[in-house]
């Protein structure tokens, strides 16, 4: 699964990790290319941080192997691995100033003094804190602290950088700014970045590939566009971006048309590639739904507006469809006709190119 033409930087082979009887990770296989930016995305408790700690060496997997640059490091302690981690909290050493924090790994490696000085200055310049060497760490803002933490790992020129939700403790404005910085730093240093987050927006914005974790497994790993547009499972569809994931029944109708049963409604469509007959999940992004006034011979299925909220760029509706357990979410651009009132009957239609069917097992 390596992106083409890249040497493997990190290989995870059949890694399983158990806490007592509970499996935090089940049989993970993953290969990450040199210089790739890969995000582990998932809700809390999905195993993404566990895998990162296994790669860093803080956890020993119950089963499986971890290879870095082709060498098996499964039994190697963290301080002997060629990876460095930026943690959720900056955790700067309070007894050292900014410069000595950044110089920490170089001092351990007994780097000559002039080189330490130069590399610390370079690392601080890279994170846009030039000349901050003599500052005390507690004088810095949260964003600056996290930049110093980043400089502290970059100074060692790691081949693989692990980032464990490094932005989650920061304010939104600083977070957006730091995302840009991370993309720039990644381009400039060329190291492999493994980034853990539960924020799908961050994952889409930063990564070459996104691995979506759920219950200790990777549900899908692909480019952000593919994960968003072609989710492999209902979980991925719901977790990455907003989506209606509704149970439908697909049957072949005459004349090349396909019949889709949604709740107690039924529509006929002609697909370029007709979906497999049988029970399925229909994935519809809220922005793909079109609303119009209910009318006889309308193209879609009838529904009733149950709620709406103004979102600036448009309206977010919740629409009840007869026989369907959950309401459909629709995001409609603001138009001259104004919003539909709560209780109004509407016609709900969508373009067939926006439809995605996923296999559904009964029960």
């Amino acid at each position, binding site marked *: 699964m390596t992106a083409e033409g890249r040497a493997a930087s990190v290989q995870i082979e059949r890694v399983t990790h158990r806490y007592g009887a509970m499996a935090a990770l089940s049989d993970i296989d993953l290969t990450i290319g040199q210089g790739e930016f890969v995000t582990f995305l998932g809700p809390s408790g999905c195993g993404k941080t566990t895998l990162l700690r296994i790669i*860093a060496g*803080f956890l020993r997997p119950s089963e499986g192997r971890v290879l870095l640059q082709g060498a098996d490091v499964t039994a190697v*302690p*963290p*301080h*002997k691995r060629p*990876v*460095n*981690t930026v*943690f959720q*909290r900056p*955790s700067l*050493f*309070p*007894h050292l100033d900014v410069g000595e924090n950044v110089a*920490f*790994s170089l001092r*351990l*490696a007994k780097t000559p003094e002039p080189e330490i000085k130069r590399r610390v200055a370079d690392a601080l310049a890279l994170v846009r804190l030039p000349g901050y060497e003599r500052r005390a760490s*507690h004088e810095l803002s949260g964003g600056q602290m996290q930049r110093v933490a980043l400089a*502290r*790992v970059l100074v*060692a020129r790691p081949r693989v950088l692990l980032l464990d939700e490094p932005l989650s403790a920061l304010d939104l404005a600083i977070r957006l700014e730091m995302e840009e910085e991370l993309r720039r730093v990644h381009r400039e240093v060329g190291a492999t970045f493994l980034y853990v987050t539960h924020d799908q927006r961050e994952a889409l914005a930063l990564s070459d590939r996104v691995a979506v974790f759920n219950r200790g497994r990777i549900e899908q790993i692909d480019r952000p566009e593919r994960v968003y547009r072609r989710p492999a499972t209902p979980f991925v569809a719901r977790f990455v971006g907003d989506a209606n994931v509704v149970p439908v029944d697909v049957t072949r109708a005459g004349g090349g048309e396909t019949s889709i049963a949604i709740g107690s409604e039924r529509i006929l469509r002609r697909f370029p590639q007709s979906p497999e007959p049988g029970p399925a999940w229909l994935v519809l992004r809220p922005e793909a739904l079109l609303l119009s006034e209910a009318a006889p011979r309308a193209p879609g299925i009838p529904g009733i507006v149950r709620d709406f909220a103004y979102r600036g760029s448009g309206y977010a509706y919740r629409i009840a469809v007869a026989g369907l357990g959950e309401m459909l979410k629709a995001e409609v651009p603001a138009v001259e006709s104004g919003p539909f009132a709560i209780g109004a009957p509407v016609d709900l239609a969508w373009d067939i190119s926006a439809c995605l069917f996923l296999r559904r097992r009964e029960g």
Partner: protein
Amino acid sequence: MESTLRSPFSGAITIASLVFLIAPLAVVVLFSFHETASLAFPFTGFSLRWYRAVFASPSFLNATLNSLIVASVSAIATLVLGVMAAFGLSRSSSALRGPLALLFFLPITLPGLFLGLALLVFFSRIALKLSLVTVTLGHIVYVFPYFLLIAKAALDRMDSALEDVAADLGASPWQVFWRVTLPQIRPVVIGATSLAFALSFDEFVITFFVIGSQSTLPLYIWSSMRRTIDPSINTISTLLMLVTLVMFAVAFALTIRKDGMRAEVGR
């Protein structure tokens, strides 16, 4: 800050308590400067004659030297043992952690009399001759739990994520300890060592059991009181109190101020 407890009644109680606690000490200090041999009021005039007399006494100087040696050695030994034990108790994930901590803290709950007797029996069993060595060993047993309690609290309070960060940056466990852990708890460790020194310096009961033929300062005071009572006792007590107070003040300042700083940084 206006306290709701500020009534004339509670103020009076506070003053009465302080007088009750401090007055006997003040009297001791005052009469150490008395110009006559009288230990009772009226106080007739100041003089340093008892201080001169005390410092001219070879047995006083010998006892003081013994006390300083015992307190220094037991404080330093406690420092080394205590930091190691505290680190183990605070960072290990062993199931033995709880029971071990209980064992380590047990001597605090034992009466000094019991500890002294037990040590005496133990030393005679292993045929160790009673001397300053046995006194030092006894003092280590006595002060160790206090040191451990303080050092372990400091380690527990410390952000252990710093140790993960250091390991991640390439520090071996030994380097993590010297470069990150110890600097974080250094003031508290120095404070707890001062406390250990102070506790050992004026310890009497255990010393009394295990000392053999030599003497320490508290023992010297006790034995001279059995002979005569003159202001030189007050002088020695004042000196003893001074050393103890200074060490306690150091311990207090270092262990408490560190907490204040942490609160200020906030997290």
